[in-house]
């Protein structure tokens, strides 16, 4: 450019003005971002950061209001115990939500499986490991039913699982005759079913095998989602099923298997549930559906699919647990606990929308 310019014969007077003008042809603009925008970008790049920060803030807030009674190792580990069931069921829900689906039947699958394990192991006198295995198989079967209806019959997951929710719950009531199996009877005839309720003390913190199991499950799913082809395919199917199919992913097979896996996780949740409440009740888990969706949403997953993390869901469940425990310890009426959790969901989703609007 400059060569040409220099080799120019004597410039005419009006051309001299050019030299004062911009001589650069193209450049990358370095935008300076306001601090808020920087934060927005950071959060966009680290989706679990939002729930993690909210969790830390709420622990700190309740710690300063309630004091050591809240911050004791015992109480904090108690919260982990209290979110065990929702953590496990939320894990199943997360997998489904990543594929842009939703599973309203998770709670019903869990209760049905727990009743089957209990009936077989306690009332019918089957060996406990066998009762457990059959329970897990029933969970897989329920998941497979959802999966077939979603992939073969192309029905929307919301409708399918709304239907199977009622079906599984009705089967649960019929098979159990609405009768509870007492903790003492489970302990006598099939104590393996209560195994996940066994407490473990670690440095003054009290866990149960169930809560450790839940943490291990989250770790395993994290590995599958982030380090295996199956996990990446799951995100791809949720983000854009057509593109995923064109890229050679067998989307129906992925979708079907994710419903089966979710069913098995729910059955494992049934095992954890028996450990937690001791007895086996056909009335249990009635709020598990919505609680699991709450955990997933507060944990930062998108209900439109393709985005969400298993660690986020665990943190989401913990946030709700911290709120409920902290508000209860601060003597807040249960009515206002519900109120607070409602706002928590709305704020979490609003925050999520704001982060997604980030300019690339």
């Amino acid at each position, binding site marked *: 450019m400059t060569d040409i310019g220099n080799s120019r014969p004597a410039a005419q007077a009006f051309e001299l003005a050019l030299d004062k003008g911009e001589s650069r042809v193209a450049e990358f603009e370095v935008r300076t971002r306001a601090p808020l925008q920087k934060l927005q970008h950071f959060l966009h790049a680290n989706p679990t950061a939002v729930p993690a920060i909210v969790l830390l803030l709420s622990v700190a807030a309740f710690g300063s209001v309630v004091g050591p*009674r809240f911050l004791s190792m015992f109480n904090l580990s108690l919260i982990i115990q209290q979110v065990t069931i929702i953590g496990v069921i939320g894990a199943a829900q997360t997998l489904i939500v990543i594929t842009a689906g939703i599973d309203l039947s998770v709670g019903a699958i869990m209760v049905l499986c727990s009743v089957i394990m209990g009936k077989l192991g306690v009332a019918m006198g089957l060996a406990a490991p066998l009762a457990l295995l059959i329970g897990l198989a029933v969970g897989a079967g329920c998941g497979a039913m959802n999966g077939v209806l979603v992939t073969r019959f192309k029905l929307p997951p919301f409708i399918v699982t709304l239907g199977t929710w009622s079906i599984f*719950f009705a089967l649960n009531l019929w098979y159990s005759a*609405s009768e*509870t199996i007492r903790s003492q009877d489970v302990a006598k005839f099939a104590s393996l079913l209560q195994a996940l309720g066994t407490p473990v003390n670690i440095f003054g913190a009290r866990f149960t095998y169930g809560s450790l199991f839940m943490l291990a499950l989250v770790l395993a799913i994290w590995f599958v989602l982030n380090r295996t082809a199956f996990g990446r395919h799951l995100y791809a199917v949720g983000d854009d099923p057509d593109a995923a199919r064109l890229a050679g992913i067998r989307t129906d097979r992925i979708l079907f298997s994710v419903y089966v896996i979710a069913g098995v996780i729910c059955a494992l949740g049934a095992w954890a549930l028996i450990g937690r*409440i*001791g007895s086996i009740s056909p*009335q*249990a888990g009635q709020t598990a559906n919505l609680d699991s969706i709450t955990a997933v949403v507060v944990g930062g997953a998108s209900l439109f699919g393709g985005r969400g993390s298993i660690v986020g869901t665990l943190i989401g469940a913990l946030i709700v647990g911290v709120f409920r425990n902290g508000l209860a310890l601060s003597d807040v009426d249960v009515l206002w606990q519900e109120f607070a959790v409602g706002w928590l969901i709305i704020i979490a989703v609003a925050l999520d929308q704001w982060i997604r609007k980030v300019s690339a």
Partner: protein
Amino acid sequence: MRQSFGLFAALALALGATSASAADKPIVGLITKTSTNPFFVKMKAGAEEAAKANDVELRSFAGKVDGDNESQVAAIENLIAAGAKGILITPNDSRAVVPAVEKARAAGILVIALDTPLDPANAADATFATDNFLAGQLIGQWAAKTLGAKAVSAKIALLDLNVNQISVDVARDQGFLKGFGIDLGNPAKIGDEKDARIVGHDVTLGSEEGGRKAMENLLQKDPDISLVYTINEPAAAGAYEALRSVGRDKDVLIVSVDGGCPGVRNVKDGVIGATSMQFPLLMAAKGVEAVKTFALGGGRPTASPGLDFVNTGVELVSDNPAADLRSIDSAAALNRCWG
């Protein structure tokens, strides 16, 4: 096409069959809160048995979940259309269902509220119910007598049903506190008492899970809790698990209300100290009999003396009877329990 015609024909036949039998026998409708709670499952079983014995036709309906008023209103409309003689209902919403009940009564149907009164109670022809305040009072008195001198320094946890403060929940909770000797403040409201012995109220949804969580949270508020009131026996079982996990299961007293068979067995095993038994089968059976009497031209049922409802009875169940307090032991109770 042929398939759907077959289905249609079968349906028409079925309809024809029911209307034929309906012409022979008076129809009694039973509308329970839900079809899931063992209390209502037993109530339905009691009604079915009584229907057979009294030669009436029973038609059962239920709300989908606790609090579902719409399904109950639809059920009442269906029963009016079917020409029922009487309706037995456990209302999910004591106030909201009243206009539908009035329509039924205007159509000449005898309406009896079971277990839960309507609001106003006289919107129904009669109410057959447990005296829930008395049920609470009995276990409160039992706890006070059992603790003896330690009652003045007791630390009390109250595990209620839900945030709605429905009449059954309030009556049992306040009855218990009255029986224990605590000033109620407003007896129509849970949680306005000033007594320092109360550690707190929490809700359980009447389930094991809820009972355990509520107990854990209240223990965090005060680890020295010595007495636990529970709205029902599943909540009591959950509370017991929470106490057991911190090694307090032997020295904390749990009292409850219901009289379900698992609950009575828990009294036997020492999980629950005392429970007030109620009689859902009796409620339904008496209800069916009343409709039969009414259908044959007899009168309407009249309330128990001193109450605005027909009391179907409460029985205190405990294996450690307290002085001057009538109770039956768990062995006797096992013959009369439900669910």
